[in-house]
């Protein structure tokens, strides 16, 4: 983690100057009053100098949102959210942060240490302000020539014709693409949180891979400037034209502090014929303390459309953070012979709640989907897999394989599996396997007898349990994720 993230953060610091966030530097204008109204949305849109169609789009989403109710079907519980008590437009530097590492939760710092994160990086992750309230800057490290890394990165992508930029920049530079695809997979009124996001999103990533291009590198949010502060209402749009390929990595294994409790992101993927998109997430937002105080509410809508024949969308996620995770990365398998995959590890400890899974909508012929979900619950947490496999009448020969495994640590936690299967085509084949197990005392003792500490033993057993998912992650991410799983479950046993 350390070297890579440090490199990337340094790249971030170098490229930062080129990206103004669409914010005025005028301090009074950096933060909008609390609350959500048409005026707030007009303010956001104006600040970002958006074209009229986008403002209309936002207002439409807002109008729909106002008529919607917060969904209650998920197995999560939280006090009512006051949506009028949120700042929908705030420059990052206005958020009060700790003044030094001394003011940061020592538990958090201990975790950084375990993950092997360098000191100066810990400060950034913890949101420590530099004197005068400025955002912390990462010094350019002598270990590498960061300018050349940044330049090489941009040049390589540009040569390949790949567009990778903040979505606010794409709105300015590639409005035709944004207008064509934004909301085409997740419509503005899709659900309560997606509608909210559509109305108020501030930034996110935009990726466009032209026809026949295999993106020459893994695209990571690390690389994107200001990635650290776009978490709240992030909007991501990835388009792979015919025969194109992209692998996108989102998130970070280090636990990230964020003053915004409510997160509602939307991610849309579009894969045309023979295109492939691989989307990997490691989500480790602040989960709250051991008593369940604080922590992020993470309500995410992620959906990919396999529009063309033989296209493929693959979601891989490792979810360890947030107080509440509400997330169902889905695939709409429209093109014939298209493939959807969902590989998920969700860990809940203490009082965390996760309700996560996927939807595979089979529309085209011979469409195939694979779902592998590994839920791990510890402490007083609740972990629910909720998945829908829907086979529509035209989807001759559709196939789905689903495997849901739950691992319980301790006897105060819960694991729930809620599969929905709807088949309207007699030629479809669906398989569903589910298991629930506990980390057995004899497994722990066996490992400890061989010399492993209790915590290392839990880490080893949990990583073994998750292996089928972890192997889907890009190599360096997989190594980080393994460490993360062990750290997330520390103190859960014994």
């Amino acid at each position: 983690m350390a070297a890579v993230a440090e490199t990337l953060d340094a790249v971030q610091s170098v490229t930062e100057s080129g990206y103004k966030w669409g914010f005025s530097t005028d301090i009074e204008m950096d933060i909008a009053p609390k609350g959500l109204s048409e005026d707030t949305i007009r303010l956001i849109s104006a600040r970002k100098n958006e074209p009229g169609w986008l403002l209309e789009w936002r207002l439409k989403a807002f109008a729909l949102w106002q008529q919607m109710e917060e969904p209650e079907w998920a197995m999560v519980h939280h006090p009512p959210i006051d949506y009028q008590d949120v700042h929908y437009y705030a420059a990052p530097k206005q958020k009060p942060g700790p003044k030094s590492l001394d003011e940061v939760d020592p538990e958090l710092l201990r975790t950084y240490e375990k993950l092997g994160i360098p000191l100066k990086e810990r400060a950034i992750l913890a949101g420590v302000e530099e004197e005068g309230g400025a955002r912390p800057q990462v010094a350019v490290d002598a270990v590498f020539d960061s300018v050349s890394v940044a330049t090489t990165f941009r040049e390589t992508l540009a040569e390949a014709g790949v567009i990778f930029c903040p979505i606010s920049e794409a709105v300015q530079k590639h409005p035709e693409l944004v207008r064509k695809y934004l909301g085409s997979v997740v419509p503005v009124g899709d659900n309560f949180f997606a509608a909210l996001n559509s109305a108020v999103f501030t930034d996110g990533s935009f990726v466009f891979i032209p026809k026949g291009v295999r993106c020459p590198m893994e695209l990571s949010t690390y690389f994107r400037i200001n990635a650290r502060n776009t978490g709240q209402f992030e909007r991501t749009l990835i388009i792979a034209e015919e025969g194109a390929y992209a692998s996108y990595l989102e998130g970070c294994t280090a636990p990230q502090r964020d003053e915004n409790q409510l997160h509602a992101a939307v991610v849309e993927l579009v894969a045309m014929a023979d295109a492939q998109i691989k989307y990997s997430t490691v989500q480790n937002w602040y989960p709250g303390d051991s008593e369940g105080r604080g922590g992020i509410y993470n309500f995410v809508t992620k959906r990919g459309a396999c529009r063309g024949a033989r296209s493929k969308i693959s979601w891989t996620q490792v979810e360890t953070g947030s107080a509440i995770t509400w997330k169902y990365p889905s695939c709409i398998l429209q093109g014939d012979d298209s493939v959807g995959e969902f590989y998920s590890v969700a860990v809940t400890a203490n009082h965390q709640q996760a309700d996560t899974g996927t939807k595979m909508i089979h529309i085209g012929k011979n469409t195939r989907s694979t779902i592998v979900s590994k839920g791990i619950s510890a402490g007083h947490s609740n972990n629910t897999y909720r998945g829908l496999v829907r086979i529509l009448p035209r989807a001759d020969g559709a196939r789905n394989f689903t495997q849901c495994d739950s691992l319980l640590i301790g006897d105060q936690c819960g694991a729930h599996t809620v599969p929905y299967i709807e088949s309207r085509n007699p030629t479809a084949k669906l398989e569903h396997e589910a298991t629930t197990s506990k980390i057995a005392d004899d497994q722990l003792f066996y490992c400890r007898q061989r010399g492993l500490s209790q915590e290392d033993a839990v880490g080893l057993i949990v990583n073994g349990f998750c292996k089928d998912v972890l192997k889907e992650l890009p190599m360096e991410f997989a190594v980080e994720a393994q460490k993360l799983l062990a750290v997330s479950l520390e103190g859960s046993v014994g």
Partner: protein
Amino acid sequence: MLEIKGLTATVDGKEILKGIDLVVPQGEVHAIMGPNGSGKSTLSYVLSGREGYEVTGGSATYDGQDLLALAPEERAAAGLFLAFQYPVELPGVGNANFMRTALNAVRRARGEPELDAVQFLKRARAELRRLSMADDMLKRNVNVGFSGGEKKRNEVLQMAILRPKLAILDETDSGLDIDALKIVAEGVNALRGPDFTAVVITHYQRLLDHIVPDRVHVLADGRIIRSGGPELAHALEAGGYASMIAEAA
């Protein structure tokens, strides 16, 4: 040297060990024989520190170190190895990864440098060859889908790689055919020497034809009722436990 004095222990409130006295001098291999329910496995779990086995009296030291005061992993770091009667399956955990993690945990605890993957594989492959085991043993998940005999051989492989100073083999011979039995015995014999002390728990004489013990102890109803040389095992084989227990009573 392993020294056990007046050791008593309960499981679920029931007294299983009723005062064990046993001394195994450095470099010796001792056999413990006894009928079912005599407390053989309980003794091995008490010595290795398994939860649920409550020591109610007595002591157990290894080289003067109080074993009973240590956590299981600390006992492992001190050089204690238990070959399990029923080796445990770890789904998704590769055998090589497991053994390297264990070996490095023990080396770290002892202040020794850890082995990298290449160094480890070299060592593991050498042991595999010596024990006539296939290389794929390292790639498979720990004991998952192993036959009974393979699980026992895997225990011996782990022992060979971890090179303990004090090994307790809990009925490692049960369920083995004669070829596997020889491999297990060779694994133990290869480690024999001044720095290797072992307690071999078994029901049967036949293992002791291959691992000739320095001493044989008979355990019955939580106590050692007789001790002797290797010939004691032959006497047991001929006369059975019942007569010896009757004699001791």
